């Protein structure tokens, strides 16, 4: 019987010719990523179980990207980055993106891709639930905890339960007012935050394959918001062009077998979809942006692994160009590469950076920033009863800071349009 992309990748890494959904298998890991929030705990687990002088299984396969709590005066946050620095030095780990140096990158999921660590056919584990972002490259990528990561550091292996695949097909290219964020919020609204628990979410069809790689990352990033184990998109020319421009390492492209078995399949006609928003406090509380036109906001936020890539800022700038924001608006590039492009990427005569600052938005430094609240002095954090519309991926209670705050999730087009009016706004109103 045929296998899906995910089943096939897991089979190959388990040394098997065939696996089926529901089986538990031990797999060999290609890349392990960790960051400043879970790295120190992971290192603790590794040393506790493999000894104080233990060496990691393969230093070329460990990638450490501090990104969560970087621009804060919090002493423990700074201590945690120092813990990573010591470990990297002790182990001789080459892929470390050290804050305060030229190598600093920012948000791990975007940094992994930009630095060539996401490759088709591979297995990537990361101590962050949004590690599933890398499924956009046709690989198996998922989030794990400190114990699993500590186990991998010592052995290069982990057990996984093979997930069945749910397929989501988007027919037709996207109209200009829709973005990947609208597609994934549409799906999550349909299946719920537990709609894909223990399963793979595969995104397919012309609507997906006409997207650039950053938009595909946005789709896969939020598989976890439906409970998915991983998201995946079949490799095409777009994938290969991006990956080959960023790494010379060899990789194997893995495709679905024609006779593979899916858990289920859903098809969407992109022409029938509209800009959507997830209401507080859950990513599956979907509404059409135009249905919420009476909802006033006090803050807008464009940033994070899912909403802080250059594509997101180009979209935001298309709306904000020549307009002024009515509420506090925060722009947080995911990585230093994106931050640099804010200055070089232009619409007309002006750079994106100029468009944003002219509109009255504040531009921050590359990091996870207020997406997950964090220390009180974090840029853009909701420190009171704010109502924020955001391009981030989670709107659980207090996710962006205060217990009294509310977060609406939307595409950068919708967030920018809402920043201009101070109310939730369908971006079509500003795209005539």
């Amino acid at each position, binding site marked *: 019987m045929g296998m899906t992309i995910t089943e096939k990748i897991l089979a190959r890494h388990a040394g098997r010719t065939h696996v089926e959904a529901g089986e538990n298998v031990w797999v060999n890991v290609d890349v392990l990523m960790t960051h400043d929030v879970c790295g120190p*705990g992971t290192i*603790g687990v590794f040393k506790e179980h493999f000894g104080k002088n233990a060496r990691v299984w393969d230093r070329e396969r460990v990638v450490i990207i501090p990104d969560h709590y970087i621009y804060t005066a919090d002493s423990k946050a700074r201590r945690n980055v120092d813990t990573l620095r010591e470990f990297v030095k002790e182990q001789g780990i080459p892929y470390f993106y050290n804050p305060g140096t030229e190598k600093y990158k920012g948000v791990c999921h975007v940094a992994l891709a930009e630095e060539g660590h996401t490759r088709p056919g591979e297995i990537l584990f990361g101590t962050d*639930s949004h590690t599933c972002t890398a499924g956009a490259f046709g690989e198996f990528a998922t989030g794990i905890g400190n114990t699993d990561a500590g186990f991998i550091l010592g052995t290069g292996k982990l057990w996984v*339960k093979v997930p069945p695949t749910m397929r989501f097909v988007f027919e037709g290219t996207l109209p200009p007012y829709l973005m990947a964020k609208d597609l994934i919020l549409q799906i999550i609204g349909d299946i719920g935050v537990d709609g894909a628990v223990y399963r793979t979410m595969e995104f397919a069809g012309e609507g997906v394959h006409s997207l650039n790689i950053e938009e595909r990352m946005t789709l896969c990033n939020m598989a976890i918001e439906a409970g998915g184990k991983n998201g995946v998109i079949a490799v095409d020319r777009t994938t290969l062009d991006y990956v080959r421009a960023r790494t010379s390492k060899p990789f194997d492209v893995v495709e679905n077998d024609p006779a593979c078995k899916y858990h289920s399949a859903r098809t969407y006609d992109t022409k029938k979809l509209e800009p959507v928003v997830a209401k507080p406090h859950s990513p599956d509380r979907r509404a059409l942006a135009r249905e919420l036109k009476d909802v006033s906001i006090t803050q807008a936020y464009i940033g994070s692994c899912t909403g802080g890539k250059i594509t997101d800022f180009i979209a935001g700038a298309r709306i904000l160009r020549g307009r002024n924001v009515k509420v506090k608006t925060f722009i947080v590039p995911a990585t230093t590469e994106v931050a640099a492009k804010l200055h070089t990427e232009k619409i007309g005569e002006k750079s994106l950076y100029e468009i944003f600052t002219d509109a009255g938005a504040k531009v921050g430094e590359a990091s996870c920033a207020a997406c997950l609240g964090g220390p009180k002095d974090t840029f853009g954090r909701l420190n009171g009863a704010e109502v924020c519309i955001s391009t981030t991926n989670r709107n659980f209670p*207090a996710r962006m800071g205060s217990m009294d705050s509310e977060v609406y999730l939307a595409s950068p087009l919708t967030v920018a349009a809402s920043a201009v009016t101070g109310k939730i706004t369908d971006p079509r109103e500003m795209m005539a």
Partner: protein
Amino acid sequence: MENKIRGKVYVLGDDIDTDQIIPAHYLTYNPAIPEERKLFGKYALCGLPEASRGLPSGKIPFVAEGADGSVYKVVVAGKNFGCGSSREHAPLALQQAGIEAVVAEFYARIFFRNSVNGGYLIPFETPGRLVEKFRTGEEIELDAQKGLLKNLTRNTEFSLKPLGDILPILKAGDIFQYARQSGMIK
């Protein structure tokens, strides 16, 4: 793995996410440092909105003001417990607070793995919804071997789903001991 767990139950609803179990600003504590590890028990479930704190009434703190841990031994919850982040600080916080098992309809995958592989608590699943069958503070007895949860206050009993694949890891203690016993690592 304890055979029988007796004590008070704390009842929660659906989709209890990891930000509610342990909010992100406490993640600067490093669980590998013993004095910081303990602090997670103090802050466990402090991200719950008032109305969700101990069903059915709500407004029942999981950890009393100024206490280091909780008086509750078992959490009964609804669907998709532990959704959201991969932070292992979530099952760790519950364990540090004194929780020995969670009984939910089903779990978010990463929370489930972390609970088992890290040996923090037993994540039992139920064939049906139990949230309305318990009130926060009722006395319970959980028989892990038989997969039975008794409400001693009401004299009712409910079967839990078999632990299945994860039983050998739970019995061994955690993924490291399991891998040692099965000869995978020395």
